[in-house]
């Protein structure tokens, strides 16, 4: 008698482990690293984040000198969030970043 049989029959009455993803969402732990966002007021445009970013995804805006993160290159390693002296950059819980428009893939 295969030992997996009781397992399979019990599964029939157990709650399925999978969820209907787009409709039901799983809550994420608090230090989840998703899309980085920049808080313009706190930022003193020191440029540390742009130097520290491993992929060079952060460039300083010409006029406002505030960081602009291109999500195409960003690997959400939260290195900028750590090295920022004013903690201006924080990691959100957002991970669905697919867009059709390249210009939208920038975290202002």
């Amino acid at each position, binding site marked *: 008698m*295969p030992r997996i049989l009781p397992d*399979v029959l019990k599964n029939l009455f157990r709650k399925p482990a999978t969820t209907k993803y787009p409709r039901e969402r799983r809550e994420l732990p608090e230090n989840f690293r998703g899309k980085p966002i920049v808080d313009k007021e706190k930022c003193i445009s020191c440029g540390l984040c742009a130097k520290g970013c491993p992929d060079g995804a952060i460039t300083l805006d010409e006029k406002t000198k505030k960081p602009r993160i291109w999500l195409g290159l960003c690997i959400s390693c939260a290195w900028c969030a750590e090295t920022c002296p004013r903690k201006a950059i924080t990691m959100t819980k957002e991970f669905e970043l697919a867009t059709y428009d390249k210009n939208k893939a920038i975290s202002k």
Partner: protein
Amino acid sequence: MIETLVYIFAYFVFPGILFASAVGLLFMGIDRKITGHMQNRIGPPIWQEFLDVGKLFCKEDVTPAAANSFVFNCAPLLCYGALIAVMLLLPINSAQPVLTSVADLIVIIYLLNIPAVCMILAGYASGCPFGTTGSSRYVVQLFGYELAFIIAAMAVAAKAGWSLSLSSIVAYQAQNGWMAFQVALIPAAIAILIAIQGKLLRVPFDIPEAESEIVHGPQTEYSGPKLAILRIAYDIELFVVAAVIVILFFGGPVPHTIGGVYIPGIVSFLIKCFGIVVLSTLIRNIAARLRIDQALKFFWTFPTLLAAISLILVVVI
């Protein structure tokens, strides 16, 4: 004139194309849903098979250059036609099948083999190495399970007074109880249930279509409507083979009255078929796929022996 109209209605609607396809696809959908829950996941909705087949019909129809196009194109149709023919010859809602006194057990067994032969031809004709490997495996497996299947069917025919016609078998079972409960025929019932696991290419024996080794075996090169027809044919085969087993072993379309509620023949027939499909799904979910040589060795020893024992028991006693 009325006779041909009845026949046309029977062919296209009731036990024919519409009914068989709908029930087959529904059974397969429920089968996938149960498999999902057995693997602790939600699984697709029950009507998923209809959606899949519908999508496939809208897809482009491709015939590979290297394929032998005539055989490649007409294999699915032949396979589908044979199964619908079997549906007409089975006593579904009453002891009399649609085409009375034309066919008996031998024709049924022969017609049930045509889908397998078509698949083998399709595999060789598709000109892709996976197809050829899949077909050669299918031939080996065909000899494996067919032996047990035929011996078990003969045992039932012998028990029902050496008559090969299905209606007489159903009639025999109506008088003195289901065949499966006869002591002599219990080994044959077990043997045939294992044999259909091989006939329907279900997991312990889905070697011709081993998706991790040879992609989809004979059906690798199929796409679009041809693949849709093959899918419907496979689902109907699932229903038809279960139907044959119900007729041979579990009393066929016999109306019951349980607790004052009158259950018509066709409903009890469908329930019993569904029972067999669920049993096959259970076996599918608790075993890994065997190699072709192991499968052949298994088929020729265990189920064939059981079927032979019950045949001897029936003939001797």
